[in-house]
Each structure stands twice: as structure tokens, then as C-alpha cells.
């Protein structure tokens, strides 16, 4: 009899336990196939690594995180469908992801209406975090194009002393908006690019673009494009026997650029929030965990992996502070985070406010350079000593 009572009590406790420990559903949207898959897959794997660690340590408030992963194939219309599915059918508490600015802009409207936070961890279009007025549910943990283009211009003109830059950008939104950001950053330094050339996705011959830049006397090429066409630029320069440095947006770190340009791509420089060097214990542990979990030596896109990983810990901190999975409360907590989140990219100390939804400020990224088929730190003194972890200044 007594034993039965204990058994019944145990069962009811267990039942109550499971009722309490409903998993927290978090959406994940990114391209896991297609031209930007290397970024999408690295981001997803970084997110999964963080979720695995959190779940192993007991979850958030005793509840496990359940990721709902969806492949948006970098297509706007698919991104919209996925957003609606994650919001209405899966009822996620927040969504992480977006590699492509177009997909992010098309999809996040639905989260804003449903009052569910989005942590945009890779897409860089400047408009993403300012698409909506406060209360804005869209946050970002990547370096936006305004930051990147300012860095590119400063690196080329101020640090390396180039005087006649040419801009080569693809004809997509990404390339053309980036080109505008770049020209205005250069204008701020009193410079006008000597040539601004355009090409299409899939173009295989860059002779005309490069000759125009060469004839205009360009001493450096600034790029805003994606991997395969960037490789054609590097290969085209080698063909013409004309070699000037390439400095461009973070896509110069894409495996499709590094692998397809080979020796011609060596020396290309780009802003990076994270470079695969274990210069702090935290970063070393992250890189080793990633390599062990996914059996790779070179992380396909280290920046995406690191930003994805950090976005999970930011969400965890916000949910714990809100003590709730209500979208509005998570948003309020993110805008006023009391705990410091020790991430791999940076230490997030009040990363967001009601008006500022950008976790990455202009001082955080450093320049990477392609060397030996990998991205390494371009200027080692940038991350020497106490500059290893670069933190967003207090507003």
C-alpha cells in the first residue's frame, strides 16, 4: 500500500515535470543548399553547437531548446512561407537566421506583426534592423554593410594609402547597395572612385571591367559581390597580367572565392567579425568543438558559425531575464540585457537598446587576409593583447 502511494506520487511528479518542461521552440531559417549554402550551413552548425551545449547543461529555465530548421534556399518567397509556418504552425518563441538580405527583408515583416523576435545572425543589408519603428522585433548580430564599407574604405585609403580605388560590384541588390555605401564612405574621405564597374551573376569574363579599371589608373580594387564572380575577378587580373590588391566585403572569405581563385586570390582582404584562430580560450574551445562535431578542419564560413553560435546565447540570456517566452518580454529583455554574454565574437555588454538593434559596432570586426587557402588575421597587432576581445562602446 505504502509503496503504491510512493509510486503514484513519483508518477505524478514526473508528469508534472514533463508538463513544465515543454521544449522551447526556436525557428532557424537559412539557405542550406544553393550558392550561399556554405554560409547557411556554417550558421546552422554554429547554432546547433550552442543549442547542444545549453540543452546538455539543463536547457533554459529547465526547458530544452527545440530547433525547427528550415532551408529557405536563399529564395524570398520560400523565406516568407517558412516564416508563416514557423509562426503559425510551429509557434516558435523566436527565430534565428537569415543569410540573404532579400530573404530577411521579405520574411521578417511576419515576425514583426506576430510580435516574435528575430535574431538576424548573418545578413548584412543595412536596412534590415531599421525596417520597423520601435517596438522593433528585429535584432542583428552581424556587421552591417555600412560598417563594412566604412572599414573597407578606411583600410584602403587611410591604412594602406591607396589613392585611386576602383569599385567592382555585381548587379544584385547586395552588390549595388554595397557600391553606394562604398562610394559614400570614399566621398567622406574626399575621394571619388576612378572606375565603378558592374557585372552579372554568372559572368565568366571580366576583361572589360578590369581593363576599364586599369586604364583609369586604379591602384586597388574594392569589391562587393559573391564568391564565384569574385574568383573570376582575381583570375581575370592574373590573365591580364595586372595585379593590384583586392579589398572587399566579407564575402571574400567565402570558400567559393578562395577555392576557385586559388593562388590568384591570395592577399585579398575583407572585414571579419571572427577569424578561425584560437586567440582566446573561448574561441579555441569553440573552434575545437566545431571541428570535432562536424569533422572539418576549415570551418566553411567561420564568421557565420560564430555569429550563429552567439545569437543562441543572446536569446538564452534574454529568455532567462524575461522569465518568459512571450515575444514582447523577450524583446524588452534583449533591449536591456542585464547579464554580460561572453560570446566568441565579442563580450556582449548591453548589446542592444530600444533604438539600437545592432550588436556589432564598427570597432569589432578586424581585417582578414587570404593566405594559404585560409583566412588569417591581416594585421596581427589588431588583436594583440587586450584587443583580442573588441567590445562595443557604451552608448
Amino acid at each position, binding site marked *: 500500500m505504502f509503496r503504491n502511494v510512493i509510486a503514484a506520487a513519483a508518477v505524478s511528479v514526473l508528469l508534472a515535470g514533463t508538463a513544465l518542461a515543454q521544449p522551447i521552440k526556436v525557428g532557424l531559417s537559412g539557405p542550406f*543548399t*544553393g*550558392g550561399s*549554402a*556554405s554560409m547557411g550551413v556554417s550558421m546552422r552548425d554554429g547554432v546547433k553547437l550552442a543549442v547542444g551545449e545549453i540543452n546538455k547543461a539543463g536547457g533554459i529555465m529547465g526547458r530544452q531548446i527545440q530547433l525547427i530548421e528550415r532551408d529557405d534556399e536563399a529564395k524570398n518567397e520560400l523565406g516568407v512561407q517558412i516564416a508563416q509556418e514557423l509562426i503559425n504552425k510551429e509557434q516558435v518563441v523566436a527565430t534565428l537566421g537569415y543569410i540573404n538580405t532579400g530573404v530577411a527583408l521579405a520574411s521578417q515583416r511576419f515576425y514583426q506583426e506576430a510580435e516574435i523576435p528575430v535574431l538576424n545572425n548573418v545578413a548584412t543589408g543595412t536596412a534590415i534592423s531599421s525596417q520597423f519603428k520601435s517596438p522593433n522585433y528585429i535584432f542583428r548580430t552581424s556587421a552591417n554593410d555600412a560598417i563594412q564599407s566604412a572599414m573597407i574604405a578606411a583600410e584602403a585609403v587611410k591604412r594602406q594609402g591607396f589613392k585611386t580605388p576602383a569599385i567592382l560590384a555585381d*548587379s544584385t541588390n547586395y552588390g549595388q547597395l554595397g557600391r553606394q555605401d562604398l562610394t559614400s564612405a570614399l566621398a567622406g574621405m574626399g575621394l571619388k572612385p576612378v572606375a565603378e*564597374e*558592374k*557585372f*552579372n*551573376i*554568372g*559572368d*565568366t*569574363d571580366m*576583361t*572589360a*571591367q578590369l*581593363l*576599364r579599371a586599369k*586604364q583609369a589608373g586604379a591602384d586597388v580594387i574594392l569589391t562587393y559581390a559573391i*564568391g*564565384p564572380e569574385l*574568383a*573570376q575577378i582575381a*583570375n581575370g587580373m*592574373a*590573365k*591580364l*597580367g595586372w595585379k593590384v590588391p583586392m579589398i572587399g566585403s566579407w564575402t571574400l572569405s567565402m*570558400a*567559393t572565392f578562395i*577555392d*576557385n581563385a*586559388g593562388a590568384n586570390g591570395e592577399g585579398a582582404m575583407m572585414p571579419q567579425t571572427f577569424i578561425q584562430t584560437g586567440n582566446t580560450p573561448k574561441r579555441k574551445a569553440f573552434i575545437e568543438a566545431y571541428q570535432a562535431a562536424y569533422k572539418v578542419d576549415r570551418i566553411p564560413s567561420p564568421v557565420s558559425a560564430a555569429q550563429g553560435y552567439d545569437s543562441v546565447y543572446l536569446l538564452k540570456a534574454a529568455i532567462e531575464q524575461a522569465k518568459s517566452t512571450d515575444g514582447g518580454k523577450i524583446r524588452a529583455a534583449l533591449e536591456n540585457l542585464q547579464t554580460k554574454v561572453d560570446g566568441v565574437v565579442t563580450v556582449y555588454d548591453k548589446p542592444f537598446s530600444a533604438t539600437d538593434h545592432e550588436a556589432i559596432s564598427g570597432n569589432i570586426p578586424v581585417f582578414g587576409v587570404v593566405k594559404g587557402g585560409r583566412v588569417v588575421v591581416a594585421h596581427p597587432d589588431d588583436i594583440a593583447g587586450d584587443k583580442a576581445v573588441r567590445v562595443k562602446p557604451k552608448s
Partner: protein
Amino acid sequence: MQILAQLIASGIAVGMIYGVIAFGYQLTFATSKTLNFGQGEALMLGSLVGLTVVTFTGYWIMLPIVLAFGLLQGAVVERLGVRQAIRTKSEAGWIMATIALGIIFKNLAENIWGRDALKFPSPLPEAPLSFMGVNVLPMEVVIVFGALGMMLLVELFNRRSIYGKAVVATANDRDAAGLMGINTSLVITFSYSLSSMTAAFAGVLVAPVTLTGASMGGALGLKAFAVAIIGGLSSGMGVVVGGLILGITETLTGYYLSTGYKDVPGLVLLLLVLSFKPSGLFGSATIKKV
């Protein structure tokens, strides 16, 4: 002057790529008055199959394997997509069927090889050759002469061999050829095989310069279609010249006008040809009997 020469050299290399793909359109159009709209995908499959095989055999032994694959792939397209349409004298059936097959091949390739652009190992050194200040890649020279050589061989085959004569007879008058005892449906299958074979060959020829990947067929196939229209679908010579015209106009416009308008003159030319000489610059006007 040196710049003009460099632009023309690059234009010729690009133009030959277009021309050799367009040549495949011309082959099937001659025999059956149908086109394989999946020509770009045949090129892409040839180059991806080549990429897989090349790691085991090296570049030169890979070529016959890819050619055999092209022959087979073309026959599949004809049997599945075109034969029914020809039999029922459908005007548009083959258009939809070859487009559909092209999409299927693309999806298949995405699943096997992924969607990233891949590097195709070059059989020749990648350092440029310099002729009087004009730089060209060794592989670009191979593209130009390889494409010309292949087109010449196919033309020779058609004009000199007994099988080729059956192809030409079918091209001239399918019904009459049938009455003379030529198995015209076999000839049509064969012309599709030949067409995909040239595309597959073009694929491994251009891939070291253009990169390869499941999406490489789309843009190139479309450009080649424009070339086939400009040059004339009934003339092998026409597609070569059409390709060169388009390739050279693209690089010249890009340099002298603006790289943003690189594609425009080619398309204007296409419109002009369509309005003033619809059969193409080198095409012979055909009278359609109804």
C-alpha cells in the same frame, strides 16, 4: 590599339563558348525542326560528369567518356521529350518537354554535386600567354581551336559519311528521306545524341575557364540561344559567326560604353535580326508548307 586587341581576343574566347553551344541547337533543328531547350543543362551535365571522372583518369582519357555520356544523354532527351511531340506533330510539346527535362537534369545535378560553383582542374598551365601585349589563357586558345575542330568534324561526318548523308537527307526533306528507306526517327535520335555530345564536350572545354556547377547551364544556354537566332538555325557557319559577333560586342560595349550595358547591344542585334532577317544572318529562308 593594344586594348582593342585584348578586348577582341577575350571576345573571341567568350564568343566561341557561345558558338559551340549554339552549334548543338543547330544540329537538332536541321533534322527535326525541334530544339533542345535543355542544351545548357547538357553542357552542365557534361562538365560535371567530366569533373567526377577527371579525378580518376586525367583530362585526356576523360574526354571520350564524357563524349559517350553526351551521346547517351541526348538520346534520352529525344526518346522522353521529343519523339512523342514529333509523332503527334505537336507544335509546342517538345518545347515544354525539353525545358522540363532541363529542369530535372539541373535538380539532379544539384543533388549530386551540390549548388556551389566548383573549380575544374585545367589541363594546361594557367599562366597567360602574351602575343604582342595581348594576354590570353592557354585554355582559351584550346577552346577556340577545340570548338572549331569539333564543328569541322561534325560537318565532315555529315557531308562525307553514309550515315551523315542520311542526316542531311532527313534535314532536307524528312518525308522523302523516309520513302528512300532512311530510318528518320533513328536519324533524329542520333542528331539529339550528336547535339548533346557537342554540348558535353563544350562543357569540359569551357569549365576550366568558367568554373562549373549546376547553375552554369542557364546563363550560357540562353546566350547561345540568342547566338543561334542571330547566326541562323540552319547554318553551322552562322552560329560560329553569331557567337563571335555577340562575344566581341559584349566586351567592346563593356569597355567603351559601360559595363552596366554590356548585354544590351547583343539583344538589340537579336531584335534587329528578328525583324529584318528572321532566319538569321546566315540562314536560308524556309517556306513552311501548311
